[in-house]
């Protein structure tokens, strides 16, 4: 299964009959399946496509340190043998009906996604496989051995890459022994030790129905969606406890400089940022657009790239999770100018935190986020992604509409206040990989 990191006959077209989603009124239906799974559904017959995702609270933070990598391997092995079908049979059967199976994995979530044509024939065949993959995975020994070797080989390769080294080092500095600090792929040592039983146990404990969110988007009726949700969840493991990560604690600030032969330095700065249900969510989100999230409209891009030509890419972002996800700034620049670039980045950040944005900047940010909202829900795929987030983080069904008005209500003072309380520039952690060697 292809792991997507979460930051992703021919039909007659009847144009003009599609319903257009208005801002506040994405018609999300929500219910609980008899298994306890939470189901989120948007009915749309515009295209003969059905998208489904099933998400579990089984991301890398569900690992324990000595078995790091178990969560990721469990997800990866789901479709390599299930319900009496071999991996070969599974991928062939899906391909035969043109269906696509994929996966997503982050610190909180492990998700399996199916995209299929909505015709009954194709759909039923694809759903039959999908349902087995989720509910009857077999974790065959030979597939485990092979996939472990592949992950380890990939990990060894990654450890030579400056960007990867930088992200790993930063993550360690940011989260320390918190479960968010675990490497998502696991470590070479822990991977080597993982046994089939570990995966089976992990699956039983974390892939339970009550721990699952089923998102359905597309060309089926409500009653069909209900039947699909039942079929996908009735044989999931029962029981199970909800994984709750502990709160994130203050990191030890500092800057690490690591030597690397690459021509560019990779510079990263971070601090614990937002929780999904954070009271400062909107001021920080809008503020970040101005600071470094808004591409060419952002201050970091202006100072680092437009004015000085120091980098091709520079941005800042919040990655909200159940507990405080990272707030991160990232850029790459020619080794010789890395200290200059780091200094300017820190200055842009500290000026922004000290003074807040201007009214003009705020108006432009709102113009973008509010005005650009229709672009966020202009495809089935995007809508399904929102359903999955709303479901997984237990956000209100009106989240998308609320989002627009909440952004619209943010003030300059709120942004300044939120950044000053939450993002202390002098307490950030930072890493420079590809630093200039000093004697």
């Amino acid at each position, binding site marked *: 299964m292809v792991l997507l990191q979460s930051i*992703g006959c*021919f*039909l*007659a*077209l009847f*144009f003009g009959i*599609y319903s*257009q*989603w208005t801002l506040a009124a994405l018609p999300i239906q929500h219910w609980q399946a008899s298994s306890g799974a939470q189901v989120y559904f948007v009915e749309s017959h*515009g*295209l003969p*496509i059905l998208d489904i995702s099933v998400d579990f609270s089984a991301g890398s933070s569900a690992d324990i340190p000595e078995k790091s990598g178990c969560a990721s391997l469990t997800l990866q092995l789901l479709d390599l043998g299930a319900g009496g079908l071999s*991996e*070969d049979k599974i*991928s*062939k059967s*899906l391909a035969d*009906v*043109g269906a696509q199976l994929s996966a997503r994995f982050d610190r909180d979530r492990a998700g399996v996604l199916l995209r299929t044509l909505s015709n009954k024939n194709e759909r039923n065949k694809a759903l039959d496989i999908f349902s087995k993959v989720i509910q009857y995975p077999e974790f065959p020994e030979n597939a485990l051995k*092979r996939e472990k*070797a*592949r992950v380890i*080989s990939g990990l*060894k*390769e990654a450890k*030579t890459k400056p960007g990867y080294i930088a992200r790993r080092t930063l993550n360690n500095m940011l989260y320390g022994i918190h479960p968010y600090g675990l490497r998502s792929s696991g470590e070479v040592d822990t991977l080597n030790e993982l046994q089939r039983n570990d995966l089976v146990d992990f699956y039983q404990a974390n892939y339970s129905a009550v721990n699952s969110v089923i998102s359905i988007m597309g060309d089926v009726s409500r009653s069909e969606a209900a039947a699909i949700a039942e079929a996908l969840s009735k044989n999931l493991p029962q029981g199970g406890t909800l994984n709750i990560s502990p709160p994130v604690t203050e990191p030890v600030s*500092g*800057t690490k400089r*690591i*030597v*690397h032969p*690459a*021509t*560019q330095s990779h510079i990263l700065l971070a601090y614990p940022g937002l929780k999904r249900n954070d009271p400062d969510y909107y001021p920080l989100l809008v503020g970040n657009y101005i600071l470094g999230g808004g591409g*060419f*409209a952002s201050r970091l891009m202006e100072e680092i790239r*437009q*004015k000085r*030509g*120091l*980098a*091709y*890419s520079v941005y800042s972002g919040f990655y909200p999770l159940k507990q405080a996800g990272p707030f991160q700034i990232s850029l*790459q620049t*020619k080794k010789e100018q890395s200290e200059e670039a780091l200094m300017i980045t*820190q*200055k842009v950040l500290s000026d922004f935190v000290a003074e807040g944005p201007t009214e003009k900047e705020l108006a432009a940010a709102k113009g*973008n986020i*509010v*005005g*650009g909202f*229709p*672009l966020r829900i*202009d*495809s*089935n*795929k995007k809508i399904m992604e929102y359903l999955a987030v709303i479901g997984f983080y237990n956000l209100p069904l009106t989240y998308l509409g609320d989002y627009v008005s909440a952004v619209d209500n943010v003030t300059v003072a709120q942004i300044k206040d939120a950044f000053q309380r939450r993002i202390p520039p*002098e307490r950030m952690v930072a890493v420079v990989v590809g630093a200039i*060697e*000093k004697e």
Partner: protein
Amino acid sequence: MKFNSGPTFYICRLPAFMFMLVSLISFEVFANPHEYMLANGLKIVVKEDHRSPVVISQIWYKVGSIDELNGTTGVAHVLEHMMFKGTKNISSGEFSKKIAAVGGRDNAFTSRDYTGYFQQLHKSKLALAMKLEADRMRNLILTEEEFAKEIKVVMEERRLRTDDQPHALVYEKMMSVAYQSHPYRRPIIGWMNDLENMTVGDAQEWYDRWYAPNNAVLVLVGDVDPKEVYSLAQKYYGEIESRPIASLAVRKPQTEVTQAGIKRLQIKAPAQMPYLVMGYHAPVLHDASADWEPYALQMLVGVLDGNGSARLNKELVRNQQIASSINADYDSTGRGPGMFFLSGTPSEGRSAAELESALRIEIERLIDAGVTEKELRRVRAQVVSSHVFQLDSMFYQAMQIGQLESVGLSYRDLDTIIKKLQAVTAEQVREVAIKYLIDDSLTVAVLDPQPLEQRSVIPSSIRLRH
């Protein structure tokens, strides 16, 4: 499942914009595109998609790195960056800010064959996008000062995307060997030395020579009324004069000289695992109705690598475990000559040479025994479904139209292309394998990994800012 065409590089202005490469296999039968031509030669293709109140507007210039000359490689892409640096009507950087302020997204991309610019926004803002895009087709102002900064950005882009990326380096060096005379031998981003010596005059010449309505196609997909789009285009682009620019059909063909024996190269770079790329010269589509080989090659990719149980993954990754990943790639469209790629990373303890032998055995097996009807049926099912799935993205739909129009084909060929793909026979797949997967037209590139020394961390310092 994968139907991407990997090695066709795109270079984008902003890295946040991840290009999903669009391959022939997913073209759609268009129910509705509307086509117009302005008096100055600007072609306009509008496709209605009313699912959401948004529109994507793309302008495609029929010029890419294929049109560059030695000494100024990379200038097509540098000019693409400079297109955001202001006109006689707006200042540097304002273009993107104006689009962003109304909720839009914009970016640009340069490929070997074409250069494109796009805006994606609420349909009510289309006029703004068109006004700004038309303005910079004619009124761009290039200054020494802006150029000096932006060329540094492009050099950083080259470091980030090529110099420090072992696999990208392998492709770059391989292309420069696989092609001996054709301009595809030069990287889109340009050689570093050419970037270091490029002048604002080079960019100006490029702009003056190639940027005109008669060398462009405007593609719109979204919740729009084609007639209104036409009036807007007439209003903003109508006044721009055409220039004497050779159409694609009459540009010099620059046929690649015939390869006369296998070529091999080795590339050293900091890495852990070796990496193997094999490239065979192959044809591309020129006449969508008359040609058949490019379709057969596209189906061959599907048979080899169309799903987890396709031949290469099943045999080399799952059964023999000689590779930790494996790919087949082929882009059947292009202004220049095509190439059929096999690539992969050997498993730990296995060598690139072993992987090459294993791949060769798979090819021989395919040639000896042919492909089965079952395999072909499976690929056909994927052709159908991926073509439907792509309708979920307006961006894809616009890319498909623009790509075909920019390489000398037409969006009207889409219907034919899908039908011809479906009609490919097992024997045709075998025939193209016999004809094209031969040593005399093969280039083999191998990454020779150079381990990093164990380096210690430079002592940390707490950096306080006040």
